[in-house]
């Protein structure tokens, strides 16, 4: 079964005077796999598509099914619950909670969204922190971490709920080449981290080339 099925998906943003067609009749199907990138220049609709798939936004037309759920039918609360259960997010600017330590940031979705009990929570968080190589930094606040370290924490947070799908919008845009490469490699290859999840990420053209060069 497909993980994501989109048919004639369109999205139009209406501002005061102009209508911007961000997506026009996009159809695709993604099978559960391991790693997929939407690559394109800035303004090509990558983020819009990712937001639709992530149930953060509603399409203007067409149909979209993610992990067996008709995204268009989800109301606010149901969409939040659906995201919490099925989707992990990695943001361009990390978006960690500044008042929580690295450990607590990773733990957050398990407490506030999935309500796991403390023992299992701790084991899962430590396992992921170890996998992203951040065990020794777990008590630091985001302010005390470098960009790459923050993104590792963000990846751990996205994966800690064991989602079916991880969506990463320009996860390397705020990182230097070397770090960007490491992060992509982490998400792409380390099955210990990604488990069963399908990773979909958006990348600007240049970044992808460099990633592919670096990684082969």
């Amino acid at each position, binding site marked *: 079964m497909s993980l994501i099925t989109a048919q004639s998906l369109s999205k139009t943003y209406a501002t005061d005077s102009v209508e911007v067609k961000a997506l026009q009749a996009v159809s695709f199907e993604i099978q559960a796999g391991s790693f997929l990138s939407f690559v394109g220049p800035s303004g090509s609709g990558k983020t819009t598509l990712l*937001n639709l798939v*992530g149930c*953060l*936004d509603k399409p203007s037309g067409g149909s979209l099914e993610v992990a067996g759920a008709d995204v268009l039918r989800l109301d*606010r*609360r149901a969409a*939040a*619950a*659906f*995201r*919490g*259960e099925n*989707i*992990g*997010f990695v*943001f361009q600017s990390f*978006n960690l*909670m*500044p*008042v*929580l330590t690295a450990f607590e940031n990773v733990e*957050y*979705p398990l*407490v*506030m*969204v999935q309500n796991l009990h403390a023992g299992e929570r701790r084991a899962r968080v430590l396992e992921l922190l170890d996998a992203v190589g951040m065990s020794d930094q777990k008590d630091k606040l985001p302010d005390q971490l470098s960009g790459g370290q923050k993104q590792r924490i963000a990846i751990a*947070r*996205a994966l800690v*709920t064991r989602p079916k799908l991880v969506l990463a919008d320009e996860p390397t845009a705020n990182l230097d080449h070397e770090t960007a490469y490491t992060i992509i490699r982490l998400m792409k290859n380390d099955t210990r981290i990604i488990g069963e999840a399908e990773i979909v990420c958006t990348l600007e053209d240049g970044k992808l080339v460099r990633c592919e060069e670096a990684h082969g």
Partner: protein
Amino acid sequence: MGKLFQIALRNLRRYKRRSALTISLIAFGVIFVLVFVAITSSFKELMIRQITDSYLGDLQVHRRGYVASIETLPLNLNLIPQQAAAVEKVLRENPEVSAYSERIKFGAMFSNFAETTNIRINGVVPEMEFAACPQMASRISEGEKSVRALEKGKVLVPALLARGMGTKVGDTVVVVATNKDGSVNGKPFVVSGILESATGPGGRDGYIHLEDAMEILRMAQKEVSEFAVNVKAMGRVDRVAANLEAKLAAAAKDPKKVPFQVHTWSQLSPFANIANMIDLMTFFIKLMLIAIVLISILNVMIMAVYERVREIGTIAAIGTSPRKILSLFLVEGFCLGLTGAVVGVLLALGIIVVLNLSKLSFTFGQAKDLILAPNIAPLEVVSASVMVIVVSLLASAQPAYKASRMEPIDALRHV
């Protein structure tokens, strides 16, 4: 829930100065209210005690219509002997009455042979009067300070009159009065003591023995102008009054024409209006506290939501339910209010202890050197704290609701 509190507290700590300012504002308001309530309520209690225990009694029983024309001290509105006996019986049978004093009140001329002035006289049975008004002895500034000051042939002269007339303890004076039949009679007295004034009507009356009053007024049988009654529990004075009224009505021959009237101290003393004013002021001060809490918390929470739009977007995107986001901000407001209330209560209690140790004295009207002993009822502390916390929650509700309704996609785009 614990995690919600943990995150809320960390968020408050993030903006240390702002949180501290809000907490101190709330604490200041709480201190202001509690110290104000402590001082005014102790002032009120002190003044009421002063009035009731020195001359008024906690409540009084008169013949119907007497109080309405009390300024003229009408002798024809005294309780006739059978009525007085009925009242005494009811008072004696009530377990909540600790003491009562029967009085014959009349207006008279007071002369020291050189000058003459008018005076209001209470004819009393000394033991009964001293029991019903326990502060009577302490009001006697010069001379005999016990029931012996009111032995037959002696008079207690109010201080203002004694000063004006140059009267001293041991002087002989004459009291002249007209009885209800219109005949004038006089009697010489020896001044046994000078009575300090007390606040309110009746605070400047002279006192003689009941039998002397009967003699001046040529009463064959004892008629009583009023019964001053002391009750065991001041807080129950209204209930005791109602109870006495019912019993007196039952004792009356014709239930439609009950000849008796019961008045509590608050119906007799103008100080009751001051007491009501104090209560009104307290109410407005509490309203100010509500305004302080409302504005400061609302301000802080609106800022918090505004500054953390992206954060709200992030937690919403990763699946935090709108209800949890709402709770998160409500808990923040709650913590601010609770901390402010706790700090305020502790400091206020400290200030009240210090005020008690420093034994502040004040003068009110003719009453001098009254020692203020502020104290606060636990109920006041609890109600002020609960009020602060409830208002904090109310003030956080709007910003919290706004946060919970944010679309994650818009919030994430926010710069």
